């Protein structure tokens, strides 16, 4: 199986190509759009309604309208958005993709639908940075795959990689970095939304940035996309969408028209987030944990028994599995299941993909726990079961496993509690679990600490409940041993 996974990795690296000629979107009747969902004001969730909105989102909707197809949004973190595009999770990226020559070589890029200017943001009291040259030996926070990271690096800055613009601003606020370069539109929108006076626009990088849609190379989508954008531009639709979301940055001050964005107090925000976060915890985090753990335990038992069997082939397959699972990062395992398997023609939805990856992971770790628990049961127990006529399976089920359970419960509880928190990694493969929900709520308000804190409290509560369950089970299993 690991060989398959390796093959999948290689294939991913090679990328894939769409078909030429006919527009595949039109024949499918739906335009699938990848976007961040946490990048205000371009792509975010309206705090009042929870709807996905934003400049890029609305432009994508208008384009789909022109093409006469339905639109479907797939929310993906920026740093895996191109991997997901290549894995055919969606047709185009609408997320302020800046047009440059490297991207042009790899992807189909449409005509620009937003034009901005790169600006340098610093703390308000920092006058040491005014131009790109001043960035030498300073620290800038940028998204790993954004073109602003290149601009900063070329200027001689050390780049700290962040998840997105809002995190960069947070690091800047906290004094952990000196600057961040981003699109003027995004910066004006931030200043307007938050009224933050601790940061300022210190200068510009003398570079215009043009943003357009990105599609897979040779997708056949470009002519239709460009035609639609041209029409939207000439009939004033683009301008009015721009007005709706970006008016604030034109004037540099919040407008009364943005009433639904009126800043809420942090406490109010946390209070409002409790419901959505609880929903994410109950519908995603908890089921993800429980289902993966149960499947994982079944796998673990099978692997542990294979590991203990006298069959050399079985033993070695089991060893190899355990070694691969424990020797590779869980994040990579998730990515392989979700992004690489489609290259082999196996496309799995986010939630089941997460279940598969987490189950396999639990299987690897728990197998060693179960194996050592079984081995801790004295040989005399197997022999006694044998002398009363039990088969291997009977001895295992009625005599050995019940005793091994007592030994295995404490370390397995550790695995379970780790798993609860590991499920937050599912956010990277489009599962809107607890942490992702917190990001979504936090994004338009920039209140990351408050919402991550709230999410942390939820995780903690889930783990508290589990610890309570653990001590109850342990007490029950202790009834037959001397204290």
């Amino acid at each position, binding site marked *: 199986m690991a060989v398959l996974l390796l093959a999948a990795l290689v294939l991913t690296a090679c990328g894939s190509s769409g078909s030429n000629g006919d527009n595949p979107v039109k024949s499918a009747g739906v335009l699938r759009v990848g976007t961040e969902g946490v990048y205000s004001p371009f792509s975010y969730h309206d705090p009042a309604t929870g709807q996905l909105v934003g400049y890029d989102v609305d432009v994508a909707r208008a384009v789909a309208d022109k093409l006469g197809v339905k639109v479907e949004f797939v929310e993906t973190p920026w740093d895996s958005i191109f991997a997901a595009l290549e894995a055919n999770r969606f047709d185009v990226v609408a997320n302020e993709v800046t047009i440059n020559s490297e991207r042009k070589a790899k992807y189909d890029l449409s005509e620009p639908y937003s034009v901005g200017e790169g600006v340098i943001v610093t703390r308000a009291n920092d006058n040491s940075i005014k131009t790109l040259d001043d960035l030498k030996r300073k620290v800038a926070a940028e998204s790993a795959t954004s073109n602003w990271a290149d601009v900063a690096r070329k200027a001689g800055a050390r780049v700290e990689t962040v998840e997105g613009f809002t995190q960069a601003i947070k690091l800047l606020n906290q004094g952990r970095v000196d600057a961040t370069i981003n699109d003027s539109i995004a910066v004006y929108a931030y200043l307007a939304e938050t009224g933050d006076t601790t940061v300022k626009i210190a200068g510009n990088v003398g570079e215009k940035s043009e943003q357009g849609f990105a599609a897979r190379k040779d997708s056949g989508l470009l002519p239709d996309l460009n035609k639609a954008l041209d029409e939207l531009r000439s009939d004033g639709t683009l301008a009015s969408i721009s007005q709706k979301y970006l008016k604030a940055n034109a004037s540099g001050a919040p407008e009364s028209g943005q009433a639904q964005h009126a800043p809420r107090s942090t406490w109010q925000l946390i209070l409002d987030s409790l419901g959505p976060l609880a929903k994410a915890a109950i519908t995603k985090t908890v089921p993800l944990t429980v289902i993966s753990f149960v499947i994982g335990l079944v796998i673990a038992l099978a692997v542990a028994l294979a590991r203990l069997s006298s069959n050399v082939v079985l033993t070695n397959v089991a060893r190899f599995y355990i070694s691969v699972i424990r020797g590779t990062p869980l994040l990579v395992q998730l990515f392989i299941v979700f992004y690489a398997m489609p290259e082999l023609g196996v496309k799995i939805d986010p939630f089941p993909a997460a279940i598969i990856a987490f189950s396999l992971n639990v299987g690897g770790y728990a197998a060693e726990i179960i194996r050592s628990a079984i081995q801790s049961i*004295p040989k*005399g*127990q197997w*022999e*006694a*079961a*044998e*002398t*009363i*006529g*039990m*088969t291997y399976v*009977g001895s295992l089920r*009625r*005599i050995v496993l*019940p*005793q091994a359970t*007592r030994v295995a419960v404490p370390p397995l509880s550790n695995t379970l509690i780790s798993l609860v928190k590991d499920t937050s990694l599912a956010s990277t493969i489009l599962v809107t679990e607890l942490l992702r929900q917190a990001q979504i709520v936090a994004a338009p308000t920039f209140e990351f600490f408050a919402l991550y804190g709230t999410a942390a409290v939820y995780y903690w509560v889930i783990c508290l409940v589990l610890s309570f369950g653990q001590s109850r089970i342990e007490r029950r299993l202790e*009834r*037959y*041993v*001397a204290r």
Partner: protein
Amino acid sequence: MTEPREDRIVAEGVHKAFGDNEVLKGVSFTVAQGSATTIIGPSGSGKTTLLRALNALDVPDAGVIRVGEVELDFSKPVAKDQLRRYRAQSGFVFQSHNLFPHKTVLQNVTEGPIFVQKRPKEEAESDALELLRQVGLAEKRDQYPFQLSGGQQQRVGIARALALKPKVVLFDEPTSALDPELVGEVLSVIRDLAVEGWTLVIVTHEIQFARQVSDQVLFTDHGVILEKGPPADVIGNPKEERTRQFLDRILNPL
């Protein structure tokens, strides 16, 4: 008009080696129905391995053994279900009792009858209670093994072996792991079984007990049975020098 006593165990040329170490070098003996046989001998002489061969806990490399109604030729490969039928002919009492710690006294005794022999629960439980009464532990039925003394644990182990109604009961040094003051209660239970007519094979170091209880004594040394016969002969008047030395060391340790 007593029936002619048939043999419950017939062993012919039993060999067993662990790696290079040949533990049984061609052992032959018989055990008559309703008799008690004790196996004595120095440690490492093969007596425990011989007993375990009778229950296939250690499967011999060669030789023919009949226990009860099942005869196996170990020089040929033996199928698993044959081995299970062979094993079902005898009950086994371990030196360190090996009770199931997660089951109550009653559950330990009924586990085999209910789960393996598929007997009705009520019937198995009333039989088990009768056996527990016999070993003097009926009132402990709902306790867990850790709540019992060593002697009580071993008596439950005996009840567990009897519950399957075996043709032969095998004892592997049943009192060696016990405190001296607890040895008597276990030996008296075994003596009662002999009196009742169970067929017993007992590996033991309790020479006085062997003398009183057994119909036959086997003295093993270096993987062979050096001497066998009634206790009056083997213990009371041994022919072999090795047997005399062994008995002397045990009876007069100083």
